[in-house]
């Protein structure tokens, strides 16, 4: 007994201890994040200029070809002030081809190294602007952030990733309960032993009817239970049959881990940038790889901030490498090898071929938002099917949605006539014949 109490105490202590430890740990992390996230003013680069201004200039004018920490079309810029003197850098940025023409050995060497790709002149940049840019690129490379640091301290406490995991706490609670039961059993046994020793006889319980027998003999209970069971069976059988052929939530593993969260969510790329055919075609196609290369020619790796706890920066960079492999792009030489392997994307939203669905009609004419049918796609790390895509789902929307008549010449006359006929200002798709079999099934 004493032993178990000791156990209990020691465990409760350890819980507190862990809580403290985790609080400390998260606090430390937060501090670290603050250190690394904010550019430190006392770093050596600060005397060059204002790194914040430099960042904005860099993003607008330089980022197409340069990255701070790795080679792009042009070389990585971090450390450039060490490699060259300030005067040369200023001259180079303002007019690099003039330097090359002059025969400056450094300039010619860089020009040769990067496939004789000339850097355009930037005469508009003042010296202080250039200093700001240099201040920005000369900052030390930031550490990859984790989810807790990105989300802030309070998110870490409540989020599933932060602090002591709920599972651990539950496990400890279960253990404590088991210990309590053991203690009770021991107490009971000891008391019985005392009673036996002092000659007290514990009266034996008379054995009543077994509970199942009493249950079977109670006809009312039996009837009610049978009815409940029958209803339950009916409920589950019908429920099972109603979800046959429904692929809601289908989330296959794609050949490349493409994240809509990063592209459509964080970067706010318009849906129709990649899925451009949604506007004009019945088919909103998967973008061909040239669309990918339009940006990824210069973006060969994700920024450190993009990485999450689940997916590291290395993982994402590896996925971009898969894209390069598919299109035959050599990032180091910046050339296409000509060896192309189409990516075998797994299609998630499948309608049977006897159903005709037209994206352009819904997107361009009706102005239905993408999220209306595909769910919060900008939050999906990996895409899943949000809507059931059953016929009942289509029909319901057609019954409730009004046709967009305004600014559509086609509907002018028909709107006037039909709204008179039905006595309403707005007409649903159903009233326009949107429930006819042949509209979708021919």
């Amino acid at each position, binding site marked *: 007994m004493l032993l178990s109490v000791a156990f209990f105490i020691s465990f409760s202590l350890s819980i507190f201890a862990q809580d403290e430890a985790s609080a400390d740990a998260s606090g430390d992390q937060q501090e670290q994040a603050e250190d690394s996230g904010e550019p430190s003013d006392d770093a050596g680069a600060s005397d060059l200029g204002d790194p914040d201004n430099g960042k904005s200039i860099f993003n607008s004018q330089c980022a197409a070809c340069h990255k701070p920490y790795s080679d792009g079309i042009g070389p990585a810029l971090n450390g450039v002030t060490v490699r060259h003197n300030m005067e040369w850098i200023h001259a180079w940025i303002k007019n690099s081809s003039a330097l090359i023409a002059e025969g400056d050995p450094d300039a010619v060497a860089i020009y040769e190294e990067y496939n004789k790709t000339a850097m355009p002149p930037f005469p508009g940049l003042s010296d202080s602007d250039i200093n700001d840019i240099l201040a920005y690129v000369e900052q030390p490379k930031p550490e990859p952030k984790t989810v807790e640091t990105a989300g802030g301290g309070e998110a870490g406490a409540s989020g599933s990733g932060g602090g002591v995991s709920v599972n651990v706490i539950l496990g400890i609670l279960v253990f404590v309960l088991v210990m309590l039961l053991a203690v009770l059993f021991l107490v009971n046994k000891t008391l019985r032993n005392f009673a036996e020793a002092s000659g007290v006889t514990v009266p034996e319980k008379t054995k009543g009817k077994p509970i199942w027998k009493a249950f079977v003999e109670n006809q009312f209970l039996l009837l009610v239970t049978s009815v409940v069971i029958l209803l339950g069976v009916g409920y589950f059988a019908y429920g099972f049959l109603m979800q046959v052929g*429904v692929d809601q939530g289908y989330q296959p593993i794609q050949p490349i881990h493409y994240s809509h969260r990063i592209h459509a969510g964080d970067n706010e790329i318009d849906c129709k940038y990649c899925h451009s055919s949604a506007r004009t075609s019945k088919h909103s196609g998967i973008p061909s790889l040239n669309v990918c290369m339009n940006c990824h020619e210069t973006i060969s790796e994700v920024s450190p901030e993009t990485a999450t706890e689940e997916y590291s920066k290395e993982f994402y960079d590896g996925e971009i490498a898969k894209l390069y492999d598919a299109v035959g792009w050599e990032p180091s030489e910046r050339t296409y090898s000509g060896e192309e392997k189409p990516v075998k994307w797994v299609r998630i939203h499948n309608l049977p071929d006897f159903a005709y669905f037209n994206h352009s009609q819904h997107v361009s004419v009706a102005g239905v938002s993408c999220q209306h049918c595909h769910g919060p796609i900008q939050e999906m790390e990996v895409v899943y099917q949000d809507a059931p895509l*059953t016929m009942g789902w289509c*029909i319901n929307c057609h019954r409730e949605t009004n046709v967009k008549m305004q600014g559509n010449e086609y509907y002018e006359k028909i709107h006037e006539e039909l709204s008179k006929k039905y006595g309403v200002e707005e007409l649903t798709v159903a009233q326009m014949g949107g429930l006819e079999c042949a509209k979708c099934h021919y």
Partner: protein
Amino acid sequence: MSSHYEAPIREPLVIGDKSYHDVSNDVAAPVEGRANKSWWIVFSIALVAFLWGLGCIIYTVSTGIGVWGLNKTIGWAWDITNFVWWVGIGHAGTLISAVLLLFRQKWRMAINRSAEAMTIFAVFQAGLFPIIHMGRPWLAYWVLPIPNQFGSLWVNFNSPLLWDVFAISTYLSVSLVFWWTGLLPDFAMIRDRAKTPFQKKIYGILSFGWSGRVKDWQRFEEVSLVLAGLATPLVLSVHTIVSFDFATSVVPGWHSTIFPPYFVAGAIFSGFAMVQTLLIIMRKVVHLENYITVLHIEYMNKVILLTGGIVTVAYITEYFIAWYSGTSYENYVYLSFGAATGPYWWAFWALIICNFVVPLTLWVKSLRRNIMWTFVVAAIINVGMWFERFNIIVVDLSKGRTPSGWAMFSPTYVDIGVFIGTIGFFFVLFLLYARTFPVIAQAEVKTILKSSGEKYKKLRAKHGDD
């Protein structure tokens, strides 16, 4: 027997010197005895036919409806012919047990049990065809208005084929309940006589604990009367609905307002012919000559004569209207000059001979009371009524409004195999029934034993009514 009056002119319905106990013995004998060799032989033949038909059905469903002889012009042929034929056969059973009950016809009591069994087994066969003639029978459940994922896509209640679903399923279930209710006292009788514990257990379950108290009997009679009152409009409506499959269409020869009563009359006509075919054999094999007497056979022949007459009038009407309408298309319908001389002339004349000429012989009393002749006529009527449905369906379809769509129909072995299979299945069920069920409603026969039994009639003739 005091204050009982029955006209002396009535012939006895139960002959022989029968007591209540004799009735029980005679009815229970086939159930308690063992099957003889001939039963096994006939049963095996029926079983083989059934299995062959089952193979044909599986072949059809798994390969496609194209294994039948149907073509684009004639989309219905043997399948629906057999369907209507089997449904029609089923109608006699309900007529005997329901309509004759309403008319207080006591002669029905010896034959109603087997007639109802025939109904149920025939409706089973009929019910197969609407399923197996579907191109996609696995979607047959779509005919039911069940809430579903398709935005609750429902059936169209305008189609007579959907009415068929309701008609046939209601008809089968009501017939089954009516039949089983009547069986309760008889199962109880077998239960009480049973010698083996197994038999006692089985018939104990089948008889639902029937103990024959006054209150039970009172309710039993009321239920029977109510069910008879419900089943009678059902008999008329079910085959009416089957006739609507054709009558509501625009096909020349199908679009006819006479179809509903005419089909019902034909159903009773063919149904009684089938009852005759079965009972003439059964009374001999099971030794029930004292209960199913020549008088019963004569009465049924009279019903056949009546309904055959109605059918004949309908034929003449159709033939007349085909000419009188002046519509050129009506010259190719199944009862027209064109049909009598066209490529299906043999089917036309088979119909006239089997359904009109041969049954006329039943007007002669000696032939009507001749069991052998009755059997022959009944068999011929069954063939004739099959031809009637075949003619309506195939002849009318074969020459429609557009001559470029004219076609002929010839069945494949699968068409024929499925039909043979249903006949086999019918006899498998009926033979099993004859060995395990009380084939005569003994409880009912016992109620007329003292009023219509030969022994008691003689006693009354000798001593007067009091």
